[in-house]
């Protein structure tokens, strides 16, 4: 081949399929984009929850106190880890819902990536890795601010970072699976109306679910957010037990893996259909 196309001295990897984890290229792409767009995402993923924390810490927390229901801790110390889990949920859905639905749509970035040696599953894992990174970065910042407010009661609060990340992923992978099937990114907005808001309010973020009637309480226990809140809260307050952590981590991991299994299928179906 001649000048323009043959590229003297350049060589393509002989067999791309023999290289480990091609999804790293998708991750690199997401990172490159993030350098351009991080300012916009910081507001929704970090500033909003921090405003909540400040409002509760300085205002609401002094009004609300119910020693029996809160087991003797301040409302701020009770609320902050709940908010950590809830904002991880929100980040998980925001970072997967719209980007994935745009990626699979006509003219989307996934459509370009599949014309290279990458396959749909590589793209999915690379993108999920990037989502995990974003969820973790927000959780780190949130836990740092919690500590600064005196809302973290135990060194175990450090483990709330991976706990919150897992919580976020338990929402990110099913959302990615769903977003790969929608015809328009607008549909993703419905998740906020029908999933995020009710979970926010009834999964133990603002008050212990023991305050709820039994039927609603049972429903709350079946949601990933309750397990995320429980995990983050018991770690932050230092009341975590092995058994309870194992149950919460097990539940969240199961939902995450289920999301991955379904997403593999919906990605493939959408991109190669």
């Amino acid at each position: 081949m001649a000048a323009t196309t043959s590229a003297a001295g350049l060589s393509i990897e002989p067999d791309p399929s023999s290289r480990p984890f091609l999804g790293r290229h998708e991750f690199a792409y997401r990172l490159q984009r993030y350098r351009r767009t991080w300012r916009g995402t910081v507001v929704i993923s970090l500033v909003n929850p921090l405003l909540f924390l400040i409002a509760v810490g300085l205002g609401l927390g002094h009004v609300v106190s119910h020693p029996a229901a809160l087991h003797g801790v301040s409302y701020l110390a009770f609320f902050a880890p709940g908010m950590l889990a809830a904002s991880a949920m929100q980040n998980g859905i925001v970072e997967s819902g719209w980007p994935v639905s745009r990626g699979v749509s006509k003219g989307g970035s996934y459509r370009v990536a599949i014309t290279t040696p990458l396959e749909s599953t590589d793209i999915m894992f690379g993108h999920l890795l990037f989502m995990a990174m974003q969820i973790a970065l927000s959780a780190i910042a949130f836990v740092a601010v919690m500590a600064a407010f005196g809302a973290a009661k135990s060194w175990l609060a450090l483990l709330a970072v991976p706990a919150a990340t897992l919580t976020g992923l338990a929402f990110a992978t099913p959302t990615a699976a769903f977003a790969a099937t929608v015809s328009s990114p607008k549909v993703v907005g419905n998740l906020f109306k029908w999933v995020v808001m009710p979970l926010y309010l009834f999964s133990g973020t603002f008050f212990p679910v023991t305050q709820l009637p039994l039927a609603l309480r049972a429903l709350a226990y079946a949601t990933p957010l309750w397990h995320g809140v429980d995990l983050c809260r018991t770690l932050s307050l230092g009341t975590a037990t092995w058994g309870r952590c194992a149950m919460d981590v097990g539940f969240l991991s199961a939902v995450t893996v289920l999301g991955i299994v379904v997403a593999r299928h919906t990605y493939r179906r959408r991109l190669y259909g």
Partner: protein
Amino acid sequence: MILQGLLIKFHDLHNCLRPDSKPLTLLAVDVLVEAVGLTKRYPPRDKHSEGFVAVDGIDLTLHRGELFGFLGPNGAGKSSTMRMLACVSPVTAGTLRVLGMDPAVDGRKVRSRLGVVPQDDALDSELSVAENLRIYGRYFGLSKSAIAQRSAQLLEFAELTDRATERVDALSGGMRRRLTIARALINSPELLLLDEPTTGLDPQARHLLWDRLFQLKQEGVTLILTTHYMDEAEQLCDRIVVIDRGVIVAHGSPRELIARYTSREVLELRFDAGTELASAEKIRVAGIGDRTEVLAARLLCSTDDGEAALGAVHRLGISPIHAVVRRSTLEDVFLSLTGRTLVD
């Protein structure tokens, strides 16, 4: 002995012409794409709809160095065929070999040696021109230095060097398309697939793009493009298949197709609406031209001598509002094959 010596000589010559390539068997050098009975059937979307056959058993052989065109109206099955060739859409039935490999088995390997220019560009408008090239190069596993070197050449080729740091948002449609072509060349592909490369571009941008595609062909790249523009197929392609409703209705060089399916010239007559059918009947009865087609208020008469045919029409006492004699094009080929025009 002599024959053997010649073969070795040929092989040496071949290798020194293409120093960057691995030695290939002589057969594999020539055929880049081979399809037999290639079929794409989409499953029904829901219980109420039926499945849809987009490509219905087409046969195809493509040789190295060719500029090959799929010509057909919207929905003819061009894009579905291109997606199968690009190894991003599984073949429903038939066999397909691209670069000698089966896409179902060696899809990754094949794709690493292809370039794809999608119809909708699919550039990342948040990133700069150079970043779009860099990201795509990374997908192929190219090193940073290789990408930098290759990007510089490609930006030059696409006449975008002075726009390298601009965001893609700021580019015109023609520039975006050239960037998309540059992006598809980042891995030095052996085969470049372009899906309607000039759709939506203004005439000047189209001509610039044609120049670039022609330059690539002269440099030895094999190209496949789809188009619903006859002039494009005529200007660029060595060989064309005309595809309609998922099947190949004709194939050959533009010149061959025109020679086979239409006469040398076309007399185009325009009438007051409502009078064209009667005039067409008179012309047919009088035996003017080889074939006469009526399209809305227009009448197209294929003939080897348009001026003579026009004279004959006037002698019949028919007076069209407007009359033009022009050279036959692939548009006329398509019309004579299907009875329909390409662009509705």
